[in-house]
């Protein structure tokens, strides 16, 4: 049965015809206990990460490391079971400390990759004091393309272990033509103690 109002079809064939918004929440992972990694794998646990959406958005909030100074990172899977897709990236940061004695913007050559298969830094040197955490978001463009490299752009807000605010601007591309079908977040050492991770799909029509 179709629902038609004022000659406009609102719903038909088991689906709404009217727009219900272009940002769709696909999956939320809130850690109830410490974990080594948080992964979004296409086809597992209701995760969609394929050609359904042209753009995917990840939002991570109140991510707290088990280890003082841990680096929050991301990796991409491109066909195997490993999160080792080759990447070339950029990373720059404005920082300022609570003591008002240090503030600058600088490129971070130790936090970028040049055809590296390792994980990419999203927020560096996070403090693990009880109230310290990091938050941010990352866009992944057209992960299912098998023609082009896959670009990603991230911006993170960190509480540096030395009581700085850090804003990490990260961008780059997975230099592979294989589809990216999974994304994994972790700290470079030890566990993610707490945090919420959300995956959204953004429609293009």
């Amino acid at each position, binding site marked *: 049965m179709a*629902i038609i109002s004022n000659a406009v079809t609102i719903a038909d064939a088991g*689906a709404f015809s009217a727009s219900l918004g272009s940002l769709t929440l696909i999956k939320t992972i809130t850690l109830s206990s410490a974990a080594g990694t948080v992964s979004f794998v296409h086809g597992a646990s209701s995760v969609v990460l394929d050609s359904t959406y042209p753009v995917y958005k990840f939002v991570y909030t*109140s991510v707290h490391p088990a280890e003082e100074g841990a680096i929050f990172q991301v990796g991409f899977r491109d066909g195997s079971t490993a999160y080792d897709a080759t990447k070339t990236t950029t990373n720059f940061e404005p920082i300022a400390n609570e003591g008002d004695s240090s503030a600058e913007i600088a490129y971070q050559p130790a936090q970028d990759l040049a055809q590296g298969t390792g994980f990419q830094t999203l927020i560096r040197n996070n403090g693990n004091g009880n*109230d310290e955490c990091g938050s941010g978001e990352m866009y992944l463009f057209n992960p299912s393309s098998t023609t082009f490299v896959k670009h990603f752009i991230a911006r993170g807000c960190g509480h540096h272990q030395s009581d700085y605010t850090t*804003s990490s601007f990260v961008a780059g591309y997975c230099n592979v033509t294989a589809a990216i079908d999974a994304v994994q977040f972790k700290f470079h050492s030890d566990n993610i103690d707490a945090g919420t991770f959300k995956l959204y799909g953004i429609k293009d029509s």
Partner: protein
Amino acid sequence: MGVISNGTTLLDAGALDAGIATGEMTLITSTTLSSAAANITFNSGISSTYNTYVFKFMDIHPATDDSKLLVNFRDGSTAYDATKTTNFFRAQHRENGTNGNIAYRTDDDLAQSTGAQPLTMDIGNANDESANGSLILYNPSNTTFVKHFAAESNCVYSGDYSMNAYIGGYINVTAAIDGVQFTMEGGTNIDAGTIKMYGIK
């Protein structure tokens, strides 16, 4: 009465079925000034209902030339004075093709300050000059961790520059943030503008 189409329940009992994918960005409230005002304040609707809040500020026109749009946060009292540590950098380019550069702005960051945080550079107040941008506030109702925020804006600087500002920081309190207030530098009025608050599930 439920509505079932092609064997799929679309809505029932006054709500969409849980299986229906809906948009996750919800407009909570919108304020458009009909006359100049000292502030635009959002003091309700910020809670644990949403994980992330986004504020879009559009066509902000200052009453006074060379004024920055500011933001501050309420953390339990009636005052908008939550302690913050922030960073601020901007890119600029003048209409005559000169002065293109990027720089950190120590005048516009905060170090454990309760004062308001600039979201823009100095906005001109000629008739067609204004600022636009957005502010993201993460997990404001959390009572364990500090609260991070990030913003980006672009404005017509009073000297006829395009000024693109990036701001980040944390509200260094564990109390929940339940109010957000936008003002102009120096306590002058916001002459015109629209600010919308969205919740992201």
